[in-house]
Each structure stands twice: as C-alpha cells, then as structure tokens.
C-alpha cells in the first residue's frame, strides 16, 4: 500500500490490517500520555481545497499523536477557481519536503492525479474527493461496526478481541443520497470486501446510473429494507437540503417527503434488531435524514465514530509512513506515470 486513494484498491488482508492497527492505536489513546514518538521528524501536510474542519482536525490530531509535524495548507483557490494549480501546489509541497500529503478536494480524482502525475513522491491519503471516495471515513465506519458487532457478544464493544476478524455475515443498510456521496461509494466497496452484505436504500433519483454493477443490493424503500434485511447496522447519509427541491432539477419533491420515506425516526429504529447500531458520517441534519431520538439513542454510535476517526487515521499514517518504501523521499526517483 503506497497511497490510500480508494477503498476499492484495498484487499481483504490490507483492510483487516488497517482495522487491526486501528485497534492498537485506539488502545494507546485511552492512556494518560497519548503521544507516541513513532513519526517523529516526519512532516505531514493537510492539503484542503475544500472546507472540512472535522476531517482536517481529525487528521491533524492523528498525525500529532504520532509526533509528526503537521502543516495545514488551505488552498482555497483551486485551478477550478483560477487559483494556484494543483500541480504548482504539489511542486511546492515537494520542495517543502512533505513526507505524506492528505488531500481533500472538490474534484473527483484529484488525489489520484496528485499521486500519479509524477509531481510528488510522497504517499497520498484521500481525505474525500468530490463524489468519488472518502476511504478513512469508510474505514472508521468499518472499525466501529466490527468493534460492536463482531465480538463474542453482539452489541458489546470489543476492540482487541476482534483483531483479525472481517465483517462476514453482517448485514448493513446505507440510506440516503448515494449519487453525490463519497462516503457511500467508499463504504460499499470496503464493507463488501470485508464480507458484509450491503444494501443501499435511496430514492431512484439519488442513485447513479450504473449502480447495478456495485457489490451491493439496491432498494427504494426503507421500511421494506428494514423488515426484509433486518440489518445489524444502519448508516444514514447526509442529505443536502438544497439538492431537494430546486425547480425542474430537484432530486426530491420536498424535505418533508424525504423524511417521511427515508428518514430514520424512533418508529423505524424500534423495528431494527435489538443489537443493531446506527451510524452517520456527520454532520447530521437532525429532523431530515435522522430524528433526534434516533441520533441520541443508545444504539447510536455517531459520537464514537468521531473518536475512532482519529485512531483510523493514526493507523493509516503509521502504515503508509513506516517501512522500507517510506524511507526518505529523496532516495526515490521521481515517478513519471503521466507526462
């Protein structure tokens, strides 16, 4: 694993290894002294072309807990908005000696381009690109699910006891705007690689053409999916209000109708199996895709997801920044895959 760009690149073995490493990282974060000397002297750049305080802080915390130096690079102008081009930014980071680049970008594929265009030698971590992928989000979701549902007792969290396990046999329902969701894409591929059975529930307008080839089931009806699948975990995706009802091109008649058909409320929560957990990548639209009762219920692991995000990102940084291939970028000739 040289970069982390998409969960569809991860093998089962690699995915489990990241989750296992996450478990050890999480254990260190329960101690009084949380900082580890592991990445001392290494420089990690947070390159954010799109605002996301939550994700940036999560990565920054992870890097600092491993003693890496963190540079936050908020590149507001992308070449889309006629600011500095991605290429020039990459060349700048290379000159500054970045050992890893964490990139968030509104354009799908920007992390791939950064990793493969030959502008940079450092490992690239995708922190969310357009409507493509958000691999660390999917990994923290998978980690949270494994902790809660793969231990000896379903529903009781266990981090270390589940080391080595995948998600075989679990049924997971993902609800919401799949079309625009990098979280959904990342999760479908990762969870299915880990052996879970994934069902996407979405209005037909919010499913991409071509979704039928994804490794998952599709349903247009949440009630039907809850009753038939009896999911072990249900993940609610964030819905953007402005996508709902713009004249002539809205994806849904009204927020109210969305909530009625696709929202997770107390009633639907009650129909889930007793051990089932509720996930949401955040930030939530309470009252739209998830009701307050559901979000705050004991089944909800939404707050825990945030904490697990730091451990997952520590694991990813550890796995990408140690080992032979990570030693000194200067020793490696510049890759020239594109020219």
């Amino acid at each position, binding site marked *: 694993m040289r970069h982390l760009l998409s969960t569809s690149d991860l093998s089962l073995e690699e995915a489990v290894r990241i989750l296992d490493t996450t478990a050890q990282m999480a254990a260190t974060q329960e101690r009084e002294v949380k900082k580890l000397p592991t990445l001392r002297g290494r420089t990690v750049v947070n390159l954010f072309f799109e605002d996301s305080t939550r994700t940036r802080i999560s990565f920054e915390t992870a890097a600092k807990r491993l003693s890496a130096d963190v540079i936050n690079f908020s590149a507001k102008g992308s070449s889309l908005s006629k600011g500095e081009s991605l290429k020039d930014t990459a060349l700048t980071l290379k000159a500054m000696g970045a050992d890893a680049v964490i990139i968030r970008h509104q354009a*799908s594929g920007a992390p791939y381009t950064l990793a493969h265009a030959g502008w940079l030698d450092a490992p690239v971590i995708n922190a969310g690109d357009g409507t493509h992928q958000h691999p660390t989000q999917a990994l923290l979701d998978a980690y949270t699910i494994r902790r809660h549902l793969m231990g000896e007792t379903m529903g009781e969290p266990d981090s270390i006891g589940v080391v080595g396990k995948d998600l075989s046999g679990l049924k997971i329902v993902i609800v919401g705007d799949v079309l625009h969701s990098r979280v959904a894409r990342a999760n479908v591929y990762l969870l299915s690689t880990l052996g879970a059975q994934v069902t996407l529930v979405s209005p037909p307008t919010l499913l991409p053409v071509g979704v039928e080839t994804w490794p998952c089931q599709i349903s247009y009806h949440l009630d039907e999916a809850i009753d038939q699948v009896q999911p072990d975990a249900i993940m609610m995706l964030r819905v953007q209000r402005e996508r709902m009802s713009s004249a002539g091109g809205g994806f849904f008649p009204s927020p109210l109708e969305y909530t009625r058909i696709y929202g997770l409320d107390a009633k639907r929560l009650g129909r889930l199996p007793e051990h089932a957990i509720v996930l949401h990548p955040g930030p939530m639209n309470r009252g739209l895709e998830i009701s307050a009762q559901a979000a705050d219920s004991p089944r909800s692991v939404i707050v825990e997801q945030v904490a697990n995000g730091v451990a997952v990102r520590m694991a990813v940084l550890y796995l990408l920044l140690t080992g032979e291939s990570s030693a000194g970028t200067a020793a490696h000739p510049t890759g020239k895959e594109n020219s």
Partner: protein
Amino acid sequence: MTSAHIPNGEGSVLITNVSIVGYERKDVLIDDGVIVDIAAPGALAQDESVAEATVIDGAGLIALPGLVDLHTHLREPGREDAETVESGTRAAAAGGFTAVHAMANTSPVQDTAGVVEQVARLGDEAGWVDVFPIGAVSIGLAGEQLAELGAMADSAARVRVFSDDGKCVADPVLMRRALEYVKAFDGVIAQHAQEPRLTENAQMNEGIVSAEIGLAGWPAVAEEAIIARDVLLAEHVGSRLHVCHLSTAGSVEIIRWAKSRGINVTAEVTPHHLLLTDELARTYNPIYKVNPPLRTEADVEAVREGLADGTIDIVATDHAPHPREDKDCEWAAAAFGMTGLETALSVVQQTMVDTGRMTWADVARVLSQNPARIGRVNEGPRAQGRPIAVGEPANITLIDPQAERPVDAAEQQTASTNSPLHGRTLPGAVMATFLRGRATVLDGQPVARTDKSAS
C-alpha cells in the same frame, strides 16, 4: 523516395508503382497540379515530359485522394497558444489531409464575413492545405440569434457549413430557422448534439465507470434526443443536416432510421470514438477528457458498424488542441478535447481496414469524397475529394500501410500535445501529401513552401 523540392503545383511528378486506393499498381503522372496520366508501371517511360519529372517510388504505398477533414479546430484567431492556422494545417498535411474545415469557435467567433475571410486568408498564406472556414450558426455561439449566414456564404470564404460546435443549437426554433435559411445557398447545419440541461457539469460518459469513479455523467440520451429532434426538423423543413461526432449506439440507430426515411442527414464519427472507451477515465488523466465523451465498448462497436455499413458517412477528427496547462490538472478543471489530425488515418486503418471491415476505397470515401461533398467543396477551382483520375486535381496522399509508428505527442506537428494516443504504436504512415501537385509532405516530413517567408 527522393526529397527533391517540388514547387507549388509547377513541374511534374511521376509516382511509380503505387496502388491506387488499394487496387492495382500504376504509374501516376502529375503536371501543373493536375493528374495528366495514369498507366501501367513503366508504360509512361517514353513520354518526354516524364524525363523532367521528379520520380517518387510508390512501391508498397497506397495512393488515396487527399483527405478532407470536416471538423478541425485551428484555434486562430484567439487561442494561438494552443494552435495556429500555420501549425494546425501543417499537422493536417502531415496527417495526409489536403483540406480542413475550420470550426467557428475561435475568438472572435467566426460569425461574420470578416472573420471567416481572415481565417481563409491565413489558410492560404500557410499553404499546407485548403482551409474552408465553418461559420457560426448563432452570433457568438450564444444560441440566441442567427449569425449572418448569408453574408458568410457570399463572402470570399464561400462558407457552406455552419456550426456552433462546442455548443449545441439547443433552441428548437433557432435550429429550425437555421436549417431553413441555409437552403438558400445549399448550406448545411453541422450540429453538436448535446442537450444542455441533461449535461450540466458533465465530465464523462454516464454509466458504470462514472458511477464508480464519481465523475458527473454525460448520458447518451443527451446526444440522441437532440439528433432525433434534428432529423425530424430536417425532414419537416426539407433541409440538410450534418451530425457532428456521434458517439453512441443509439445515435447510430437514429441516423439509420432517418436515412431509411429519406431524410437528408449525414453523420460523422471521430477516430477516438472508433478506438477508445470510457474505461480510460479510471486514470483520471484529462488527456481522455473529450466532448462528446468516450463511450463504452458497445458504443465503439456500434459506430464501427455504422461507419462500415454507410450509416455514418465520414470520419472527422474534431482535432481540438489545448495548451499543456489546460490538461495538466485535475479532471474537472481540464479542458475537453484531443488532437487527431496526425493519427486519424492510422486509427481508421487499425479499427476499420486491418479488421477487414473496410477497404481502402471505403477509406477514400469516408475521409475524402464524402466530407468534400458534405462541405460542398468537391467542385470548382479548389475541388477536393475527387477521385484519382486523369484530369482531376492532383490532391493525393501516399501512405505506407505496413509501417508501425510510435506516437510521440511532443514530436507532432500540432502545437499542442494532448494526444490520447501518446505512447501507443499505430499502423500506417503518411509518406507524402500532394496539394494540387505540390508536395506538402515528403518522406513523412512536412515540406515548407519556398515562396513564403519562414514563419
């Protein structure tokens, strides 16, 4: 082959032992820009004019009528950083072309007699190929008001092809008026079929690949809906429609249906849509970003079949040069378009001839005769797309079909490097191009005209 200089249409050239459009070998004698004799190999040796002729050994080569591109972006005026008339037409000659139709989306737009005459003049000065400007359908390509089509038709540039290419003439009333109006001078509307609302922010073909890699989709129906509408409009007003760069299996079906109804429609396909698919977008390399987008394997098969059976009339390059910075970036920020003049013939050979679907005579039809006829440049003093026959203008392209050549974008004649075929090896090479008897390419290399100042 000798590299002797051949003046502009003067003097005589004897091409020996060349296979004319893939048929039997002949000697072809050119004098004063005209094909004066065609005879069995060696038979012309006694002719006294032959003694002074420059002799070109055509053994192993195929002679095609000079190729005619109905869809070229020369970028001048306005984007000389991407291409100039000089560099673009030199690339055309290197690709075996003797004529190109220059698309209207320059800056200023080719929407007045003045601009089209300027482009024609630049073409004449460059002298590599005949440049036939295409006029814009609407003022400024804005899709609102008809440009002065009549003035452009009557101008020195004698415009017959009108297109807002790059943008679709989406307003059905404007399209109807344009189709009607050009009947007065036997013009044709070349439509860039793209329903704008269905393709807002579109980045690539909508389908399995776009769903997975998260790029906004450009659905086939956005192309097919416009083509369906336009063929019905053309039928209704009894005018002539040309469909640019059709790219989907559905589009081929609609054209096939329209032709069976007797609708006066012609259609083109680009070399890249004959060869490449949307799978290439997985690299996020914007070199593969083009409009209309690369489609699926099934679409590629359908356009090949449509070209072979005559549903699709021509191959046109949609040569769209872009400066490096417009491709050296993330996909969404990159420009649409790819170069094609210097690889078009090879792609057609690879996809259609080497696969046994077309003969070289068919190639002459789709890359020379038909485009010249559609553009109404097949008669008159600058007749293009004529057969290789005695008395015809000596517009001839000699190709070596056995050649294997690597494509190096940096080595091409075009001023831009955005070739999607960079790094591939293609069959066939243009060895010589004659524009009315003057060699614009010899030994595979462009030959600059001596009567103009170096530029």
